[in-house]
């Protein structure tokens, strides 16, 4: 496959991924907001957030706005000195 063909295939896959979203997205934005603080703390502490909050990752993959809010809260916590 040539580079341009690969590029086109990637573009189509991106379009497909964006349109169809992840499978298993069962959370809505409200539930995502409710779980966000706990999910981010577990994520920052590398404590397997996806086991504790099932469905969250799929929602973040499918919802750009919640994904941005997740990134922001994570960045804010990481910008602070760790508590004793």
């Amino acid at each position, binding site marked *: 496959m040539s580079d341009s063909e690969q590029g086109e*295939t990637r573009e*189509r*896959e991106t379009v*497909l991924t964006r*349109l*169809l*979203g992840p499978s298993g997205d069962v959370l809505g934005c409200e539930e995502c907001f409710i779980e966000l603080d706990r999910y981010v703390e577990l994520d920052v502490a590398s404590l397997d957030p996806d086991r504790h909050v099932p469905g969250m990752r799929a929602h973040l993959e499918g919802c750009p706005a919640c994904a941005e809010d997740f990134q922001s809260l994570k960045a*804010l*916590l990481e910008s602070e000195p760790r508590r004793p």
Partner: protein
Amino acid sequence: MTMPTEIPAGDPASPSADDSRLWLERLGASGPRRDAAIVELHALLLKAARFEIDRRRASLPHLRGDDWEDLAHESAADALSALLAKLGDFRGEARFTTWAYKFALLEASVKTRRRGWQGREIPIADDAWARLADTSVTAGAHVEDTELMEALRQEMTGTLTKRQREVLVAVTLNDVPIDVLAERLETTRGALYKTLHDARRKLRIALAERGFRIDGTREEAS
């Protein structure tokens, strides 16, 4: 949805319990004790709002310094009201400060996104959609891909309602933030996400019925 929290002892997220209890106790008090807690809380929310707005500065080059500061203060004030109304929902599963931050970040991100789209026309027409149909007939595309894209095109027209198609295309292909679209369509982010979710589910079911394996394709893409 409530899942059991299993934060092990000694975890960096856990020594917050006393802090959180103290916050709740002070906010539940009356008089100067509560007033002092509110002032501290507002400062915390303002810090988070400024943090968020700083992250988004590049997306709004035309705003002046005062505008940014106004936006941060509006966000902190709205976040404080929202938080106090939801104080009873705090379950202590994260630090109180983390729980508080998310209110300020949400207010600031929504306000900044809306400011960024102020006066701009929302691309809700099916422009991106037409390009999608074009790419599927580009020379060199694999037959399977072409068939899948053509099926998708047909199902988007045949299976989705006009509203579902517009919301799906605006948010996923034209990068319109969901809360900006919600404001323009006079609905909520949650309701729009449901529209998006229903549209995606219908497409997935329709494509599966035609024999396409969607998640195989999706895995390769990520």
